[in-house]
Each structure stands twice: as C-alpha cells, then as structure tokens.
C-alpha cells in the first residue's frame, strides 16, 4: 500500500477524524493559460495513462473535442475567441478539469463514506468502489467537474494522477505538456513561479494578468495563470468568485445538524411525554357505559 494513500486530510461522510498525523508536501498543478497552445496533448496523456477512451464524436463547428468532460475525459480544452479590447483578437484556451479545491464541495456533498478523500498533499480523489452513484458531488462542485459514468453509474474526475504522484512522479498531463504550460510542484514553488509569470505578462501588455487561486474554496491545488485575471469568465465561463453554493452549505452544514437535533427532539419529546403523561386510554368505565 502506498504510504501516501494513508495520509488523508478529509474523507467524505466520515464523522470521526481520519489518520492525519503526517503532513506531506502540499502540491499544486499550475496551468499557465498564457503559454497554452491548446494542443490537447494533456487530454491524450490523461486518457492514455488512465486507460480511458472517450467516444469518437463529431465536430460541432468548434475546436473543442470531446465537447465536454465525461467519465472518459477528465480534462478537456475549452477554446474561446475573444476581443478583450476592440480589434485585438485573442484565442484563449483553457484546460478544464478538477481544481482540487482546498475546501472541496464534492467531498462535502458526498454521502458515501470514503468515496471522496482529500490527501494531505491536497489531491482530491474519488474512490469508485465506495461511490454509490448519487451524483451529489456533481451538485456540490462549484466548477461543474465530476461526471457519472453511463456504464457503471460511478462518478469520475481528474485524480491529479494520484497513482503517479504517490510514487514521486508528476501527473501525466503536466509531464506531457509540450510548452510547459502545465507545471507541477510544491505549492510554494508554483506560487513563486506564477508570480514571475504575472510580471512577464504585465511587461507584455497584460495589465490585469494574475493567478487564479480562488479564496471562495480556500484556494485550489490546480491554479491558473491568466492574462485577464480580472475577467476569468472570458475563459469559457471560468467562475469569477467560485465557492461552495450556499444551498449546498445550507444543506450539508446547517440543515442536517438542526434536523438531526429536530428528529432526536421529536423522539425524546415523545418519550418524555409518555413517561410524564402515560397513555391516552378509554377507561374501562367508559367502555362499560357504551
């Protein structure tokens, strides 16, 4: 058993603490959108390494293919032709996939114990053998990432190649990226590198360049360098300020606790009432008089 697999920070639907004495290096995959040429090597590397083959689809009048994430495509390139300033065409190409949130909405929503875990290195991983196929992770995710397989009903998404990282390798997509638009390393190093990239982009005229590491989910372990960090929505709808939906928070955090208490109260209330008042009986005498 890989040592790393025991270093778990969070585990879905688990009410006791998980073994967490060891603190491993926190890792980050940094996607530098300004270097990405949209070649889709990462899509192939992902499918090849994870033994997936998506359907051979059709062209829908765009470069995006497969058109969306699926149980077989854990990452896809999303192409956007935009003109942030009039007459200045930019072809923004974003690698979409799991962001490995520090506060993962999927994990919070998941009712199946151990189906979703967050390792102490930050990777959020799905364990399909424990997954029940309820789709709550889809509901919980602020980035619309997990997909249920039509074949087995289980949820799938990017594992950040936890099997490779566990043996000290980088994720397949990061290794393959021909332009170095996908880097993988310690969170500290990646933030440092990203800061340098932002300086370079600003020098090249992208005044609003920045790093996408949204605080609404306590940051992510997949970060973007964006030329237009002020307008992430330009990148085919990257959410500007993502967070776990208030509805999900209401559902999982407040409501369930209160309702558990409510149910308990109802039961206990009944018991107390019975013990103090006894049964509501028709007396023998009443029966006799009828």
């Amino acid at each position: 058993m890989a040592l790393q697999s025991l270093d778990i920070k969070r585990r879905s639907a688990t009410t006791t603490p998980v073994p967490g004495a060891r603190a491993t290096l926190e890792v980050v995959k940094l996607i530098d959108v300004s270097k990405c040429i949209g070649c889709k090597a990462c899509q192939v590397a992902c499918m090849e390494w994870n033994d997936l083959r998506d359907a051979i689809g059709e062209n829908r009048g765009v470069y995006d293919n497969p058109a969306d994430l699926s149980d077989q495509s854990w990452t896809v390139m999303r192409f956007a032709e935009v003109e942030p300033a009039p007459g200045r065409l930019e072809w923004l190409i974003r690698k979409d996939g799991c962001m490995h949130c520090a506060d993962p909405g999927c994990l919070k929503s998941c009712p199946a114990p151990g189906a979703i875990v967050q390792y102490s290195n930050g990777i959020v991983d799905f364990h399909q053998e424990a997954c029940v196929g309820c789709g709550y992770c889809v509901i919980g995710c602020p980035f619309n990432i997990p997909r249920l397989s039509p074949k087995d009903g289980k949820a799938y998404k990017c594992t950040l190649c936890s099997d490779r990282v566990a043996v000290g390798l980088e994720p397949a997509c990061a290794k393959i990226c021909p332009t170095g638009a996908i880097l993988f390393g310690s969170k500290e190093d990646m933030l440092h590198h990203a800061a340098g990239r932002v300086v370079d982009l600003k020098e090249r005229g992208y005044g609003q360049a920045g790093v996408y590491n949204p605080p609404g989910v306590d940051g992510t372990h997949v970060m973007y360098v964006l030329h237009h960090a002020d307008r992430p929505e330009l990148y085919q709808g990257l959410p500007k300020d993502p967070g776990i939906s208030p509805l999900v928070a209401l559902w999982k955090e407040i409501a369930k606790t209160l309702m558990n208490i409510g149910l308990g109260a109802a039961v206990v209330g009944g018991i107390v009432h019975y013990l103090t008042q006894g049964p509501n009986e028709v007396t023998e005498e009443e029966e006799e008089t009828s």
Partner: protein
Amino acid sequence: MTNHWVDIKNADLILIMGGNAAEAHPCGFKWVTEAKAHRGAKLIVVDPRFTRSASVADVYAPLRAGTDIAFLGGVINYLLANDRINHEYVKNYTDFTFMVKDDFGFDDGLFTGYDAEKRSYAKTSWGYQIGPDGYVVTDPTLANPRCVYRMLKAHYARYTPEMVATICGTPKEDFLKICGMIAEAAAPDKAMTVMYALGWTQHSQGSQMIRTAAMVQLLLGNIGVAGGGMNALRGHSNIQGLTDLGLLSNLLPGYMTLPGDGEQDYQAYLGTRALKPLRPGQLSYWQNYGKFFVSTMKAWFGDAATAENNWCYHWLPKLDKGYDILQVFENMHQGTVNGYICQGFNPLASAPCKVKVAGALARLKYLVVIDPLATETSEFWQNHGEYNDVDPTAIQTEVFRLPSTCFAEEDGSLVNSGRWLQWHWKAADPPAEAKSDQAIMAGIFLTIRELYRKNGGAFPEPILNLTWKHRQPEEPSPEELAREFSGTALKDQTDPKDPAKVLLKAGQQLNGFAELKDDGSTACGCWIFSGCWSEKGNLMARRDNADPYGIGQTLNWAFAWPANRRILYNRASCTPDGKPFDPKRPLIAWNGAAGAWTGSDIPDYSAVSPPANGMGPFIMNPEGVARFFALDKMAEGPFPEHYEPFESPLAANPLHPNNGKARANPAARVFKGDWASFGSAEEFPQVCTTYRLTEHFHFWTKHAILDAILQPEQFVELGEDLARKKGIRAGDSVRVRSKRGFIVAVAVVTKRIRTLEIAGRKVHTVGVPIHWGFMGMAKNGYITNTLTPFVGDANTQTPEFKSFLVAIEKV
C-alpha cells in the same frame, strides 16, 4: 534547420511565418516559450490564419496566402532603406561587394533569358563578373550600381509598405511594427530565428519565399549564430534523413547529384561539381566531391567499382529530366508507368488533385504498398461510397499490400530537423506476420536478383554486383547498414605525414568524411553521415545530455551531421578577426594559443585556418560567402520576385500589372493538360489554404483512437464575414468546390480568419485541414487533395497546396 530545436531558446526574436510551429511541432515550439520566458524574447506570427502559434504571439499580422515574397521583400526594403543591417557581417560574409554581369537584367517581372515557350530561362547572364585571375570582381566601396548590394537595393525598392498592403492585405501599421521589431535583430548581440515549414514550401514560388527570408537573415547577420538561422521544420520524422540519403529522383546520398544524359564523361561530371574557389583563399569544400562519390560507389558495388570503370559511373541511371512525384503521376496518367511501389507513403491522400492521382493509379499494371496501416492508396480501387466512388471491376491493377513494422518494433536511426541522427530500439515484435522494411526490400530484391542470376535480362550488372554483406541476407540488420553508410576503411589508412603509421586498419570504421579517399580505399554510403558509427561505436545511440555551455549544445547526445556539428555556418557567429559577435552566446572562437577554432560546437570551417587567412564562413560555396544573388541556382531568377499563385483572386500581379507572363511564376512547370484545371476568380472567388492540425499527423493518426477522439470529423474554417454572406453557421455542413472537385465538411466559423483588403477589394480565405480520408478510426471524410492544383514550385516541384481558389456554399 541551420540550427537546432534547443537553440531556439537563444533567440531574442522569433518569426514564425510559412509555418505553424505550435500546431505542427509543439514539442519544438517549447523552445520558443523558453526563449520568451528566459530571454524575454518576442514572438511574431505572420499567417493567413490566426493560428495556435499566433495565440501565444506578441504580434500577429495576417497576409494573403501565397504573398510571402511581397511581405519579406518589403522587410528587405525596410532594412536597406533604413540601413538597419549588420554591416560587418554582410560586407565580409556575403556577396554584397560582388559584381554582377553586365548583361543581366530584370524587366517588368522577368529576368533576362526568358523563353515563354519552354517556360524557363537561359541563365547565361545570371552570374558574377569574373576577372582575369579567375576570381569574382568585387567593389569593396559598394558604390558600383552592378554590385550585388546596389542591385539588391534597387530590386526591392519597389516593395514599399503600400505595395505590401496592396498585395498581402497586411495593414501598413502592422507591417511597419513588425519591420521595426525585425530591425532590432540587426544588432550584433541580438538574434532572430525564422521558423517555417510547408507554409512556404507548398507554393509555386516556395523556394524563393525561403530564399527571401534567408536574405533577411543575412542582412541581419543572423545565419550561423546561436538563436538565429533559417529553420525548416521538417514535416516527417525522417524526411530529413531520407533527403540526406538522396531518396529523390536526382540525388545521390549526401546531396551529390545523379548525372544527366549529357554527362557521359566521368571527369566532366566531377568537374561541374567539385567546384574551384571563386575567391582567393576559400575552402570550397565540394572540391572533395570525388572522394564522396568514389566512396559511395565502393559501398554500393564493392570490388566491382574500380578506377578503370570510373567506379561504375555508368551503372548509375542518368537523367533526361526530373522524375518527381508530379512528373511520375503525369506519366502514369499518360499510361507510360506500369508499376509503382509505395513504401509508407499514401499518395492518393498526399498528392495533389486526387481525381488525377486515382485515375493514374488505375492505369498501373501493379501497385505495391508497404505500410503498417491500411492506407487509402492501398484501397484506391475499392468503392468507399461518396469518398471514393470507383468501380473496382473496371480497375485492372494488381495490388499488393505488405504489412511492415512500426517504429516500436524495429531498431534504427532517424534524422530530426536539427540533423541529429538518433538511434531507437525495438520494444516488441510486430503483429502477426508483419516484417521490417529491410526484410521486405531484401525479399523483393533478392528474388529479383535470383531471377537475373538464373535467367539474365536487361543490364543485370549493377543488380548482381550490389554489395550484400549481411549475416542474414534476407533481413539486413540496421547495425550493418548503419556501419555501411557511416564508412569503412577498405585498406589500411596511413598517416600522410608518416606512411609507416597506420591510422586505421582495413575493415575498421572511419571517423568521418575527412578520411574519405577517391582511390577506392574507403567505402562510405553517405558521406555527410560519416562517423556516425566509428570505432568508438554507435554515436547515434549516445545519451549524454550534458550542456556544458548552457546554450543547448549537447554534443554528446546522438550524432549530428555533418561531423557532429550542431549549428551550420557557425564561423559566421564571429567577427572576421575571430571573436564572437555576441560574447554571451559563443559558439566558436579563434583560440590563438591552441591555433584552432574552439568552443561549444564543432567548427563549420577549416579548424586550424586563422582569421587572418580570410577564409569565408560559407565553405560549401566556392565564393566562401553567402549569396544574395543566387546565380543560376534558382529556376525563376537570382533575386526572388513576387508572383501570384497560379490560382489567384487577382487578374494581374500588382507589381507588373501589364505583363501577363509575370502574373504567376513564369518558370513553374505546368503539364499541358493541367492548364484547363485551373479555376478563375469569377467562378471560385475564395482563397483556400490547406494545413495540418495539431491533433493529427497527416493521414496517419486518424487510425489511432486517441487522436481520432480529439478531432473526429472533417471540417473547414471560414471567417465570420464570409459565413454571414453565405448564410453559414458554425456546425453547418458546407461544400467547398475547386475546379478539380469538391469536399463536404462541417463549417467552423471563426474570428481567426480575417477578411483582407487586397488591391481595393475584399478577399476571404477558406481553411481546409488535410487529415481525413476513407480509412481509419475517425469519421470518414473527403480527401482534401481533391481540391488542390497539380502544379508545383519551379525548383522543387512541391505542390501548391497553400494557395488556390475555391467556392464555398451551404449544403
């Protein structure tokens, strides 16, 4: 490439034009991103489409397909007019001072000597003035109007920014911005690299486009320096190697050429190739041609090649003309070709004008296809519905399909674009009965040889005497073949200064082409590869990636031809007195103490010739310098001139509006029957260009499921204006027609293809990716070359796939 992939990281400016490196060579493009990241380099992309390369560029400018000479001619004009050139470089390392013959001239688009009937030039006037000493006359003052500098300046003075805008459709301000950036690279410590590919070669004037860019690089002093060069990004993994080995109609290994019919005399054949220096003190390395030739003949014919029979000179076939693929398909179409063998080549999909190619194949008696995959060509006779609508019963061709191994199932070497010979190792056995290419070639050849041995036949000598010293004759091993082309001493090689000292014993491997002899004592199948397998072993298999100078010169990784040299013309990276132009990125420098040129590369020079000797850095030219004036080497003229593509939206060449002969390349070969197959702008108003996508490799990866997933279905791209005009929306099915046929595909409507303003009118471009066909895992599609014209570059006969005319409509 004059330089190599990793060296791109040394560039300060990168011009991607006539290519789309990010799309077609993503892993090489990495070094562009490295240059940007670590040198703050800027990237310029000039292309009819806003490509994947453009998506990460600092500056993008559009131009009309096929007008690159006009654009680059405009850059030359800018550099000369504003005097933004590397003076020390051009004066010493180019023919700037050379005097051109007085009878040479240029008039309204045509150079002297044009024969309209033959569509070719008599090139007698295209030369330098030669003095009584046999050397070229020069004018170091550069004042004489007949010196190359003056003539060059006069020639390109017509390429004003306004003319560029008229022809190319490139907005003037974009063009001038790019000129200004390029001019920066004229500083001795700045380097621009040019990355191009088939976006330049696949035009009827493709070679001249490349020449124009090379001239820009010479003006800037960027040839031979780290981070500079003219970098052809070859399309296929070993097309560099196969070209090096001379697998073209007119070539022998190492860029030696086959004789023509008229060259009946061996010495005369050598005389026109082993050129004497044209300036004093020059090396003129081709003077060694005889050594290369004899060694090749010894490798091929062994003991049968003797001084007496001129080393089997007459055993080689002689050329009455070139038999490039277009000529052969023309002949096949005419019915004069009976047999054809396709070794891993899919001409039905790759060659222009599918209807002509398919018709030609159907006239063959036999066709042999050797391939790991089921290609379209192997099934040209099979009905595949709308995509290949033929009647098999009417096709009488015998077809053989022989399964070969793929890369993973064989040992051997490939030459990458940077001229590195890299060895690879077999990982698994091939499927079922598939055989290696060597075994298949041996099987065919040995069977033929046996027939000739038994039954005799036409001129059997070369067949019977071809060397075949293989331990397993039916499967020559890659190791044996590599040793053969690297070169072997046939007799003991002694030290010229001390004949008693034996340097190499007979049977030992040579260290390099410097050891080749023209006395028959050495054998070498490909002189430029010489030394790749020496007595030190297989240098192509070396795997030491150490980069001691930090500029990407990994001399102990694999083997680069020639002589493990990584950057060609590297002597030009130094000033005439032997000091690097840019001391921060030194390639070589004169080391007075050692009495030799030393540094991070193998000198492309006489290693011990001191600067004071004045030897030029371009040692393969008899002048010792680089040529702006191409002499008689190019078919259409010594200076590149813009001509319109054969199918152009313009009725006349804007540079020569009144000379119909100068509309399209006057020297390009057009077969008689093909004139009628060119379409007019009235009928086919849109400019069309074909290209690769990054998701696919040619007609090959559609057989791989993983890549079929990425781009499953054929599509064409068009701009928003044209789409609006034609009522086409993204995802619609559209028909694209040329005079030669039509394809139907899904429309991708994009902002990335702009409408251009050409000579006062709007011109739309339609982009057609090439990758689909009727075989493979992806959705079947039409062969793109259904659309393309059957005309090629005047020098190389590379088909004009990049600019022709179509009409597009919604289906």
